[in-house]
């Protein structure tokens, strides 16, 4: 089965003056329940403080929760900080009250994925795992080699 995998580490944060943090807090707990290590940075964060925390904590994912119509304004600032600090390979995702027509714009700016209200938690968990974990190996392997198992199976 190999060595136990390192836990996925996620940073969840609000940004700017908007303090509607219910979604961020609920998601923090539910991602933890799914086995991830999650830091909730809190409300009223700045792009700089989010990226600094992401660096210090060496996270795999940064999740930003939006509500006040500020997503198109803050996302470029966060992306810029990510680039400036050379945070390569960190998955940047967003969620919250975001009009559908803005989702492609956010992706163009650098958000890997955007989860609007009503997204089942499992979708977010599955998305993060699919992006960060290597494809699941078969539970047991009759021949010890993937190629043979592909041919014949058990």
């Amino acid at each position, binding site marked *: 089965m190999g060595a136990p995998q390192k836990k996925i580490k996620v940073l969840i944060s609000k940004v700017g*003056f908007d303090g509607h943090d*219910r979604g961020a807090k609920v998601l923090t707990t539910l991602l933890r329940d799914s086995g991830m290590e999650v830091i909730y940075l809190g409300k009223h964060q700045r792009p700089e403080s989010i990226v600094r925390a992401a660096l210090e904590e060496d996270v795999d994912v940064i999740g930003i929760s939006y509500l006040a119509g500020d997503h198109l304004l803050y996302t470029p600032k966060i992306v810029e900080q990510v680039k400036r600090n050379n945070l390569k390979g960190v998955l940047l995702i967003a969620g919250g009250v975001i009009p559908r027509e803005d989702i492609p714009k956010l992706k163009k700016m650098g958000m890997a994925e955007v989860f609007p209200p*009503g997204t089942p938690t499992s979708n977010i968990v599955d998305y993060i795992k699919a992006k960060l974990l290597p494809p699941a190996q078969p539970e047991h392997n009759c021949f010890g080699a993937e190629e043979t198992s592909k041919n014949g199976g058990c």
Partner: protein
Amino acid sequence: MSAEIEKLTEAYLERVKRPMTWSGIPLKEMYKPEDIKDLDYPKYLGDAGEYPYTRGIYSNMYRGRFWTTREVCGFGTPADTNKWLKFQMGEGVGGLNVIFDLPSEMGVDSDHPLAATDVGLGGVALCSIKDMDELTEGIPLDKVSFSLISADPITLASYVAVAQNREVNIAKLMGTIQNEPLHSRYCAADPACYPLDLSYKLAVDIIEYCTRYMPRWVTGNVNLYNLRETGITAAQEIAFGFAFAMAHIDGTLKRGLKIDEFAKRRAFYCSAHIDFFEEIAKLRAARRMWAKIMKDKYHAQDPESWKFRFAVHTAGCSLIYQQPLNNIIRVAYEALAAVLAGAQSLHACSFDEPIALPTEESQRLAVRTQQILAYETGVGNVVDPLGGSYFVESLTNKIEEEASKILEEIEKMGGALEAIKTQWFDRQIDAASLRYQKEIDSGERIIVGVNAFTVPPEKERPVGAHRVPPESAQLQIGNVEKLKSTRDQNKVRLVLEKLRQDSGKGENFNLMPAIIEALKAYATRSEILGTIREVYGYPYDPLELVKSPFSTH
């Protein structure tokens, strides 16, 4: 076709799967006379207009006057929102209802170095009386009922100052200041902006000031709605809200006012959530409970002090992003529940609220929803039409019983202020919101368009998003900078020094007069709140970046 046939037979056999209220109160299949056999009419119900007001606070209810149609709004510059208010008036609203932007709620000016991105978001920017003057331009303040959703004294003081500058007698002003900073920490605000001792003191200052000088003004609109939006139950909504309301009453009594001097100008802001009967029962129960509390606990003598006056905001959190037109139906049911429960004022949500700011079209639809209720359905003809229903009365009793139990628990802890300090509310709210999400994730709770009856996004009717004009933030920042550079600085220095001295005179010394004078000299929100904060030992700037330009320390 077999998949469709399977779906059809499945749909044919569907039935109630969750025989309980939204809040989880188990329900019987049918309610009978025995369920309300102890319901003594004069003791527990009484006619509308009579103690304990279960059936309504006025004897004739909507035959006397309909509820006030009052749609919350606020975005961009004061001029942007002024234009919107005039649009609303043209559509036939009966009252105005304005919310202020994120920097204003934080207690800082639009030109704060961190505020630029957030100016005009979440509400309208308001830093000075110049902004209030623009916001209310062309609106005769002695003729309209104006509700201000704000938790610090600057907003109300600006309104008073502008009225006085226009030579309007403030005794004639009609409206409401929300004035409930205690709940704010659980609903978006930063506790650093609302230090418990100071914000509580200022809330009592507002109550005292309005009681003395503005007899027609509602001195506080305790916000149960925001609390409910976190995911708590109907009974918790009443209990938490009442605990905060009682904290304000205790503070005002301690200040030396008599209960019958100020209780009649207190009000509440409640949610109408999606469970129809539970919400009606909740609001009826709240009316009865409040009357008892005012009479038995606070020994109020004036029947006006016993009345639970409430506005309703239909539940924003019940609205769904997916298939947004369905929200029109949700809002209509919720608004109907509010009216059947006897609300004094109603904000019906616009169906696009889970997506963006309401557009003109969606806002008009929300106003029309209220007008159809008022003029076509006939539901306003008869007072408390559900009174006497075995089910509704039984559920009213049940919610009162549950809410009383929770309120008692809070009182045993030492009241709301203690429960805030021990983070009891935080724990209750976090648990409730988590439970709600888990019920949706597991499918135990069906939400149409979310975990049932879904369609791919491309099949949804696109809803345009109303955007705050992109130039508004810079315009507003420019205006504030201009104000600060062109006013008489010496005058500002003097009024702030007076405010500083008054702030040092102890918590019973009312700061409203000094705040109003400071505003008239064009001091701003940041400067006024910052000056008071410093005296109380808090940083001038809640974000600890800006230093007082007028500090002598």
